[in-house]
């Protein structure tokens, strides 16, 4: 993956100053900025402080901000996730880090039964401005209990806003927007992308978390995706470009509530769709996007919607099986050539 070279839009924006850093560094700078800008913000999670973050995202922040604002917590996911919700009710702006998305199920009661419901159950009296960050995704041979694409589980729940951090720009710019939101936000970050370097506009934050974003404009087919699918789709689009195929890449970014307008706009332009996601196929984000397209702009389609999804299997350990369990660039390329009969 060489993401920065794919950003067609930036190449045409000559006046924009870009910066280059790893996805991890972008996440860290976003946290640091939030802590500096608002004294109500604190980061709480397992090993975020003395250990430096399980994936070194928060390394050095304890030394900079002290233990009241970088809080190490015991292995009590429900307890500290709920404490984040309570602290948000009490006027703070907590960032709750769940070490991996798998552990989020131990906090699922708090997220689904409390964070997502309080505003409604209280008739609008109590909003919950809490942010849950969780590292997720597939691709580091972490096997079935440490690698998952569970965005659809969370995106099913009214009351939550679910964001997928698929680019460096969003790694740097989504947190500030999430913290400014009055409601609970779940941020999916991707472990496999942490070391990846990328380039993005220097003054891009906070980003708009109300809408999807066209990462590459094209006219022949829409690749609708999110998370790690974004860079894979951009790589595929670059390769397809050489074959004379001009693919559009739409990064959903906001998985709940979905930006339906961006989806229908893109489909109405290209009339062909490939949806790419790492979550397993059944009852997924791609299922929902497919349904929306059928409902809202069926007659714009010139070909059946195609999907490339995670294979329906707990993630296996061996590299070759793990790679085979999620969509890869080559499959995107060949599927699109097939759809376009080229």
């Amino acid at each position, binding site marked *: 993956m060489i993401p920065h070279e794919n950003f067609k839009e930036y190449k045409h924006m000559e006046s924009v100053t870009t910066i280059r850093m790893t996805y991890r560094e972008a996440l860290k700078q976003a946290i640091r900025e939030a802590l500096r800008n608002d004294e109500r913000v*604190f980061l709480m999670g397992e090993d975020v402080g003395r250990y430096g973050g399980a994936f070194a995202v928060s390394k050095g922040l304890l030394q900079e901000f002290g233990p*009241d604002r970088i809080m190490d*917590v*015991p292995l*009590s996911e*429900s*307890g*500290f*996730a*709920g*404490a*984040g*919700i*309570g*602290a*948000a*009710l*009490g*006027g*703070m702006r*907590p960032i709750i880090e769940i070490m991996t998305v798998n552990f989020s199920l131990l906090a699922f*009661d*708090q997220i689904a*039964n*409390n964070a997502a419901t*309080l*505003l*409604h*159950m*209280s*008739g*609008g*009296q*109590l*909003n919950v401005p809490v942010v849950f960050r969780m590292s997720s995704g597939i691709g580091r041979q972490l096997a079935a209990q440490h690698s998952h694409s569970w965005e659809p589980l969370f995106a099913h729940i*009214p*009351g939550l*806003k679910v964001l997928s951090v698929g680019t460096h720009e969003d790694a740097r710019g989504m947190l500030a927007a999430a913290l400014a939101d*009055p*409601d609970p936000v779940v941020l999916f970050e991707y472990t496999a992308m942490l070391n990846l370097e990328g380039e993005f506009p220097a003054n891009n934050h906070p980003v708009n978390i109300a809408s999807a974003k066209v990462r590459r404009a094209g006219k022949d087919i829409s690749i609708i995706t999110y998370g790690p699918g974004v860079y894979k789709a951009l790589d595929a689009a670059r390769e397809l470009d050489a074959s004379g195929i001009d693919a559009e890449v739409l990064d959903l970014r906001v998985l709940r*509530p979905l930006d339906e307008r961006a989806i229908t706009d893109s489909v109405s332009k290209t009339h062909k769709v490939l949806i790419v996601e790492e979550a397993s196929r059944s009852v997924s984000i791609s299922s929902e996007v497919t349904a929306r397209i059928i409902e809202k702009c069926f007659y714009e389609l010139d070909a059946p919607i195609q999907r490339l999804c995670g294979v329906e299997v707990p993630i296996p350990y061996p590299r070759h099986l793990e790679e085979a369990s999620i969509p890869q660039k080559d499959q995107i390329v060949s599927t699109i050539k097939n759809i376009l009969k080229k």
Partner: protein
Amino acid sequence: MEQQHQQEELTMEKSREQQFLYQMMLIRRFEEKAAEMYTKEKIRGFLHLYIGEEAVATGVINALRPEDNILCTYREHGQAIVRGVDPGAIMAEMYGKREGCSGGRGGSMHLFDASKRFYGGNAIVAGHLPMALGLALADKKMRRKQITCCFFGEGAVAEGEFHESMNLSSLWQVPVLWVCENNLYAMGTAIKYSHAVTNLEVKAAGYGMPSASVDGMDVRAVWDAAEKAAHGVRDSGKPFFLVCNTYRFRAHSMFDAELYRDKSEVEEWKKRDPIALLASYLLDHEGMTNEDFKALEEHVGSVVEQAVQFAEAGTWESIDELTKFVYSEPK
């Protein structure tokens, strides 16, 4: 309107104990009326009555300050009344009317009043304990002197969230008054089938937290214990675990045939009815007369009647507004 009447009555009362009596009688009569309205299908869903346990909410909440936070279970009508949530707004909430204290969206199990720092009405057993912890953490971080009082049943003590919250509150040294209302049954499961150790207050030792247990049928004893506990929590900024041993006279909810306990056991506990206990104390020691008692009953009856009228007169939210309160409205 109801609110004004209630406040008037409270200031008219001579002693703390007489206020307790009024509040407990109001809870009792209010809930009897709610049960009646349930059978008339004015109230639907789950309705969990607090009858028999009135001394716990009354004793504890009177030991708190208005700025303190309160979180409760789904059996929370009593706590809401003692906290001063308008009885009319509570009844309207159970009716599902717009004028309810949660705008009708919550019902009996989800009474909220942000202006009274009354944070529900939470219906996942032990699910609100971590939130209580977080509210107290925010108070500590913001250097506010208020405390958080969290009610839960002994059923919650079997949940992981209880143990996580106890540990974290002690680890972080945050001001929470944990109040266990031990009514001996988690729905239909008796405490001996739920807990290896049934004197629950000793569990606090595992978290290095002070604790006490008290006769939850004796409101004076509950108030006394809660007053000391709340004072300690406020002073030290550290948590405390208070177990109130009580008993629910009615079924778990309106769907409960009570197959799990003998009528004789219920009758035995009714001999220690918290209202009767306090009334006889007041008759014996504070010169309260049967006439006073009758006048109080009449007043309580009229407050409840006004609450029903308020609920009956309430309005239904338009279906157009169905998806309100899922996300905050843009300011």
